[in-house]
């Protein structure tokens, strides 16, 4: 159904305004919507088109010319050099495990809640390792795994590999494995590497950065997906089967692996964890791929 161009322009205007975090004029927006049912439809179409485009664009390499250079990260040695400097500065605090620090570790499938007195709380997903400081509840290091941070009194600084996340009063989820760091924000804002790229990640955004690289990308994420593992659900967007297997292992405590043939295949979709936990074969229907037990783990994919 083709949209009237004037209405589409109006809808686009509203989409721009409501897309600003400071937008307040919901009554005027309601009035515009109520004026004609076609308006809501037009707004939905615009929002969907814009969201889809925003998610698709990072798949393209960033062009070398013009202002794209602005958000292209500094050359690697440069970022690395600064990172080394930062690491050196904090070395006494974290890397050498001063008396005040301690480790919280979860086994696969386990969920644990840690209260940070006067600061907030951390819900730690299975198969994760976090270093906390008894003397300073405002710093932590996520060594590996995944956790949802609810920070009531900012600032709070989280180190993830060589990256630093500075929170400014917020709820955010961080996942860290050998390949990648992923930060998703559901409330407030988090600054990614304030000393380097200095990117503010806002609600509904997900920033990913590969290990050992200063490059990063930002995509949209449904706020309901942030920390959804706590509710026993997991959503994948264009994830490789290897990633799916690793995440499922970590969160269910049941071992999964992807076959070498299928490991790089990409899938999208939502999985409920508890049915998969009780019957891993259910994944087969979900993914349309064979799932079998190879004696050690549940193997997903074609052999």
């Amino acid at each position, binding site marked *: 159904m083709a949209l009237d161009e004037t209405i589409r322009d109006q809808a686009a205007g509203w*989409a721009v305004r409501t897309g600003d975090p*400071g937008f307040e004029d919901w009554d005027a927006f*309601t009035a515009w*919507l109520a004026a004609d049912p076609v308006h809501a439809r037009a707004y939905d179409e615009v*929002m969907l088109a814009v969201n889809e485009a925003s998610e698709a*664009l*990072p798949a*393209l390499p960033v062009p070398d010319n013009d202002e794209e250079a602005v958000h292209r990260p500094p050359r690697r040695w440069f970022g690395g050099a600064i990172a080394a400097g930062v690491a050196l500065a904090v070395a006494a605090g974290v890397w050498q495990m001063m008396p005040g620090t*301690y480790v919280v570790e979860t086994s696969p499938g386990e969920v644990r809640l840690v209260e940070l007195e006067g600061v907030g709380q951390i819900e730690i997903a299975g198969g994760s390792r976090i270093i906390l400081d008894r003397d300073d509840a405002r710093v932590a290091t996520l060594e590996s795994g995944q956790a949802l941070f609810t920070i009531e009194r900012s600032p709070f600084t989280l180190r993830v590999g060589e990256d630093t996340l500075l929170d400014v009063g917020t709820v955010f989820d961080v996942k860290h494995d050998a390949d990648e760091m992923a930060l998703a924000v559901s409330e407030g804002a988090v600054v990614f590497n304030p000393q380097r790229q200095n990117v503010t990640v806002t609600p509904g955004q997900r920033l990913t950065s590969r290990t050992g690289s200063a490059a990063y990308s930002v995509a949209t994420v449904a706020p309901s997906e942030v920390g959804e593992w706590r509710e026993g659900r997991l959503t994948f967007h264009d994830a490789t089967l290897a990633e799916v297997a690793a995440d499922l292992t970590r969160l269910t405590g049941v071992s999964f692996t992807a076959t070498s043939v299928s490991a790089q295949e990409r899938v999208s979709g939502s999985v409920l964890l508890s049915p998969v936990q009780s019957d891993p074969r259910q994944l087969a229907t979900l993914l349309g791929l064979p799932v079998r037990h190879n004696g050690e783990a549940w193997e997903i994919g074609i052999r």
Partner: protein
Amino acid sequence: MRFTGNRNVGSNPTLSANTFASFEAAASKARRSGVFASADEDLSAVADNGSTSGLEEVFLANRDRLLRFLLARGAGDAAEDLLQEIWLKISARRTGPIASPLSYLFRTADTLMIDRFRSFRQAERRERDWSETHDGTVPGVSDSPSAERHLIGREQARLAMETLRSVGERPAAIFRRHRLDGVPQRRLAEEFGVSLSTVESDLRRAYAALAALKERIDEV
């Protein structure tokens, strides 16, 4: 392992049971105290004990407004269910202070509708893909839809990029900075040395062009 003050989080059923319990409690409390007349009082009480960010009270005081919004937004019969969903969302989690609770609630409602429309469209597409791919494929053998989907994603990206370029280099760059890097519009005005209304108008033209593009693709 040496640490104290942690506990294992209960299983899911407990969590949602608690959520419902708090819903009942808060709603009846609101009725008893006539929350629509004394919302301010309740708000300050909540702010004092710090147990919530005041969202629940703002929700109860503005329930009708939110309902009107959802109806105008096209929720139809689902409007009441969506209100309930918003309630569950805000009472299930403890968040930090929210600068503008009412705006937060409207935004939550708007996002729910955006997600709804998206899943509606996806279901439509799946149905179509299903009937298309189930012609001539061998049962039990994957005809690698994921690789195909990946290609479609890149093709979609290329088309989106071209469309943005056709609107102009600056709108394309502003779109990228705003949507992909998450830079607020006000900061973009400074960055590009233009007025806020120019940023808005660049984005509006970019959005409209992408919507027109999608319409063309979907018609194929």
